[in-house]
């Protein structure tokens, strides 16, 4: 059946192109637009920037584009410190997530087999509620007359309420809480696959449990550690909702700068420049990850 075969061949060529098409349509094109806006000048108009794209005036169009916004960005301390503080907060949060997530994932992977699906379901369960509502709930817990302070006061541990809300601590609490599943699930996936005989073999060869953990369990969980850390670090850098709701006005994060440039200042070109810089900050860890992964795969035949 030549028609059928021909159709099949065409299809089999199209199918691998689909993800590229998807990425082109929903990432590359929007990114191109943002990039273009970031090179434009602000204007009081609709849309609020010039030049607006017109096919007829190519030369004029390109002449009007410049790096002015990037110059502003790099000359203004505010954006620098926002970017730095974003990276710092995301890095500390990722570390905290790893420290909390690893034991959770390890306990899940070592739980009796019939319990594991239930435990995985419990980890995912918070997603059934809106992210925004869950972050709002933390306001109720963390504020000075909130649940946490009431509980601590009732236990007699504190006399004055702790000021947690509107501090960086609250941001860490929020990020760790919201992102924990993204850390736990990849870790669980690698730990669950791990052959327990390897641990036994290490013990048998004279390695005590703690040393075995560092020499066998952690290195073998490395792909999960990297995946979980990136899944948490990347969105945490650009996080807007959590610092906005829990962090108070002093917590500088690049996501917030982006938001205020777009919506408060209506400076779309500058906001777009911030978005492009944010993307560059995030691309670096992804490239590192790809490199690590490629080397790991290369070591196999």
């Amino acid at each position, binding site marked *: 059946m030549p028609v059928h075969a021909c159709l099949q061949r065409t299809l089999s060529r199209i199918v691998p192109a689909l993800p590229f098409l998807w990425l082109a349509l929903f990432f590359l094109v929007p990114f191109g637009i943002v990039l273009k806006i970031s090179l434009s000048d602000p204007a009081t108009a609709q849309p609020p920037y010039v030049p607006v794209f017109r096919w007829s005036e190519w030369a004029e169009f390109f002449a009007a584009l410049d790096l002015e916004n990037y110059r502003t960005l790099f000359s203004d301390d505010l954006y620098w410190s926002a970017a730095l503080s974003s990276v710092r907060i995301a890095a500390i949060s990722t570390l905290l997530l790893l420290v909390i997530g690893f034991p959770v994932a390890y306990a899940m992977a070592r739980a009796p087999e019939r319990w594991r699906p239930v435990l995985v379901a419990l980890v995912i369960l918070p997603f059934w509620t809106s992210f925004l509502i869950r972050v709002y709930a933390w306001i109720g817990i963390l504020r000075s007359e909130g649940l946490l302070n009431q509980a601590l006061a009732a236990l007699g541990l504190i006399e004055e309420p702790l000021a947690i809300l509107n501090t960086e601590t609250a941001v860490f609490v929020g990020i760790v809480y919201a992102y924990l599943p993204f850390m736990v699930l990849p870790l669980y996936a690698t730990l669950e696959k791990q052959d327990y005989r390897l641990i036994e*073999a290490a013990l*048998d*060869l004279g390695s005590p449990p703690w040393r075995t953990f560092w020499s066998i369990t952690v290195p073998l969980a490395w792909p999960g550690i990297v995946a979980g850390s990136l899944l948490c670090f990347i969105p945490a850098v650009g996080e807007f909702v959590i610092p906005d709701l829990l962090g108070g006005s002093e917590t500088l994060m690049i996501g917030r700068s982006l938001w205020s440039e777009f919506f408060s200042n209506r400076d779309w070109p500058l906001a777009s420049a911030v978005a492009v810089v944010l993307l560059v900050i995030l691309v670096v860890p992804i490239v590192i990850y790809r490199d690590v992964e490629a080397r790991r795969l290369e070591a196999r035949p």
Partner: protein
Amino acid sequence: MNTPLRSRPAIGAVRRSFAPWTDPAATPLIRFDAVSKRFGDTVAVQDLSLDIFEREFFCLLGPSGCGKTTLMRMLAGFEEPSAGRVTLAGRDLAGVPPYRRPVNMMFQSYALFPHMSVERNIAFGLKQDRIPKDEIAARVEEMLRLVQLTPLARRRPDQLSGGQRQRVALARALAKRPKVLLLDEPLGALDKKLREETQFELMDLQQELGTTFLVVTHDQEEAMTMADRIGVMDQGRLVQVATPGEIYEQPKTRFIAEFVGDVNILEGQVSGREDGLWRIATPAAAAPLLIDDPDEVLETGQGVAVAVRPEKMRIRHGPAPEGLANAVEGEVWDIGYLGDWTVYRVKLATGAILRVSSANATRFVEHPITWEEPVHLTFAPDAAVILTA
């Protein structure tokens, strides 16, 4: 286990000069003393006592689930006995964690560390002892040479063949020079040819190093080839501990006779004793069988099983001549030509099928036996064993 053997020269085909288990003054290296192990409701090992001596090559043989691996894991320290004691060189091992026991194990799956090269796998145990670096390197070098893997030192486990991985696992377990090496189905993952070669390599290695080997296997051929002594286990109990020859030629129970090698079982009743031979009446033969098994104590009328190995029977054309002792008549049901042996399956009038094997000592046969031909089988009185259990 060692029943005094009458005037028989030697049981099995091998005479052993190394036999500390026959010396009442010898102290065992490993002692399982009334050891039991329960997992919830299931009993994996039940009230088991066993002595293993220094330099011995001991095989635990049994079907899967018989408790042999559990017994080994109790020695390695991965399981604690529910009752009884395990001692090594006189020291009670209760509560001693696996990383403080002077035994090393070679795992069935090899359990090589996938993120380490061959050398680092072998060096792993040595590093735990904080041995100086150059000494570790020297020992790793020595181990690599021992298992002939020197050129592959920097490879990772997933770049090795099954046989090479097995040798890395062996080198890793031997690197610390343990008092006892535990091997869990060491050849299970290898193909037949490689398995046979490796059996002899393991035996040579054990001779050379003088390490006590404890092997767990379900493969009776493997156990027979390698072991000084075999302990046959069934349902958590040790049913017989003896040399391979004794296990094969003088099995204590029907389970052992059937598990180790092929065997024909003829059910019958004791009908008396004459000239030192037991008379066993069986529906399979016209005249009572005469069996030379002087160690058995039997009563007339007692139900017994007569066990005869296929290679200890002769097959002849036609019905049995008048007055021939231990003759069973039947008809050829199946013939399997294996090259070195031919195996005949003979159906008796009772419906039972017996196996007879005969060595093909010549290339040509005048009157070959053929399908559906009436034949008779005979065996010498001392070729059979009487089993009561």
